[in-house]
């Protein structure tokens, strides 16, 4: 790896921690970002010449902080601070700061930064955009492309989000245990949303936006490093890893959805699956089950099956029953119905989703699954009605194309039935 690539990786890796600490000094997102930008520019000039500092994050924070203070001092016409060339030789200053970073401050810095980005006052799309901009350091252009809006629109969205959180006034003192748990929960939810955004796009033609998924996994790992004993965070990281491991098999060359049962499992990333399963194992030891852990366990059951027909559907059914108890939701019941259809047959599954028509009236997968179950029961005319509704609700071209395939099968009457939801 070249020195430039390494510096790039080090700057990316340091970003959440450095911006978090600078935010603590300046109490202003824009100022913290500007100071970090400046520190990065100086690192790019300084590191190739003087070699990388022992603690890149501490260096960036120190230089960024001095830049900010310098800025203020220059305005008040007092003496400037020493140049960075001098700073990087001041081993003591770096050690001091590094020590301060190792205490709990640092954990709360990063948590605060993440929490500010996913502040409950912000709509989900703004939370994700802000986190991608501030924490991940994606460019406006990259984020705009991911959300299929213009750069100007994305800039406006992020500016609006920033002004909203600055008014929201997130406290800077150390959060108490209850407050911290609440923040961790909100951050986990935002990371989960970010992953879903990448996993199944809410619009446009690119069905899987790998970059967003990878970024979500990076943030989940970061959160887990901050809270290494939280089983739900282990569950979250495991869930994202296990889902992401299937990405290479989820779409065919033309971008069409390939159902879980039809995927070439040799394409699944075994290395990522192993890490996900290890995290599920670790989480279960705590005997404090939660929704992320259960969802990860479900993904784990699929990962364990060498062939689709080896899938332990009754285990999945039971796990969904647990999830229904922990987090009752019509979407969970809908997913459970897929497992029930495998264990008890389509009639039982159909009965199970009978009452979901109202709460899931606008939900693509409801119509897809109901159509598929009706098709399995030979009720083809009814099935066609539900597939038509599903197409109307499809978010992406790939989803629509997939349902059209079902309709083609109905016309041909020769192909075996598929359930739509297993594609997830």
């Amino acid at each position, binding site marked *: *790896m*070249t*020195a430039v*690539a*390494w*510096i790039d*990786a*080090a700057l*990316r*890796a*340091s970003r959440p921690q450095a911006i978090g600490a600078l935010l603590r000094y300046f109490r202003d997102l824009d100022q913290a970002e500007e100071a970090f930008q400046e520190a990065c520019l100086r690192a790019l000039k300084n590191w190739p010449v003087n070699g*990388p500092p022992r*603690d890149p994050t501490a260096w960036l924070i120190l230089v960024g902080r001095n830049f900010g203070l310098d800025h203020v001092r220059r305005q008040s016409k007092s003496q400037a601070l020493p140049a960075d060339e001098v700073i990087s030789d001041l081993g003591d200053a770096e050690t001091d700061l*590094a020590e301060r970073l*190792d205490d709990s401050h640092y954990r709360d810095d990063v948590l605060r930064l993440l929490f500010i980005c996913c502040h409950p006052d912000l709509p989900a799309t703004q939370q994700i955009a802000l986190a991608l901009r501030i924490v991940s350091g994606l460019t406006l252009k990259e984020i705009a492309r991911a959300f299929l809006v213009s750069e100007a629109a994305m800039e406006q969205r992020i500016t609006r989000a920033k002004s909203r959180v600055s008014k929201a006034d997130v406290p800077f003192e150390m959060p108490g245990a209850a407050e911290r748990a609440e923040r961790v929960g909100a951050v986990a939810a935002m990371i989960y949303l970010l992953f879903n955004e990448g996993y199944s796009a809410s619009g446009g033609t690119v069905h899987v936006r790998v970059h967003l998924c990878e970024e979500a996994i*990076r943030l989940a*790992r*970061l959160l*887990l*490093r901050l809270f*290494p*004993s939280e089983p739900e965070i*282990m569950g979250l*990281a495991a869930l994202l890893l296990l889902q992401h491991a299937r990405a290479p098999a989820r779409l065919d060359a033309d971008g069409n959805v390939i159902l879980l049962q039809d995927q070439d499992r040799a394409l699944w990333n075994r290395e990522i699956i*192993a*890490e996900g399963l*290890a*995290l599920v194992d*670790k989480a279960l*030891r705590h005997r404090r089950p939660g929704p992320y852990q259960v969802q990860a366990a479900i993904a784990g059951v699929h990962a364990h099956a060498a062939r689709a027909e080896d899938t332990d559907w009754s285990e999945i059914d039971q796990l969904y029953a647990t999830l229904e108890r922990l987090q009752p939701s019509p979407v969970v019941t809908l997913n459970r119905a897929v497992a029930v259809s495998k264990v008890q047959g389509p009639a039982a599954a159909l009965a199970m989703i009978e009452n979901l028509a109202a709460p899931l009236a606008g939900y693509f997968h409801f119509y897809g699954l109901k159509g598929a179950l009706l098709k399995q029961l030979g009720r083809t005319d009814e099935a066609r009605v539900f597939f038509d509704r599903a197409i109307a609700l499809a978010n992406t071209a790939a989803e629509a194309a997939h349902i059209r395939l079902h309709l083609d099968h109905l016309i041909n009457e020769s192909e075996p039935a598929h359930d739509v939801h297993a594609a997830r």
Partner: protein
Amino acid sequence: MLYAILCYHDEAVVGSWSKEEDDAVLARRDVVTQKLAAQGRLGPVARLMPTTAATTVRSGRESLVIDGPFAETKEQLLGFYVVDCTSLEDAIETARELKGGESGGAFEIRPLRLFKPGSRAT
């Protein structure tokens, strides 16, 4: 003498490598390990999962199981090589070769006291 070459790096940085960068590092290391293997000097090689997947057992009055790595450090043990070398100089040279021009991180060389190749298939 057998030496373990232990690879330490900041896993947040390694985690920020793109797949292409990661593959490039592995490919470069492969060149070295293949040479060592051809010379009959290469023992087991392992790459560890991130420390987030680690669990630590500490012995006290009763053994305590802790989530996470053994030590909270800036740089984590990410993997290791076992190589047969004629001298420390030779081991240092091998470690240098494995590390290539790569920036950041550190390779620790530890002489082996006991070596059991194990019996696991593959």
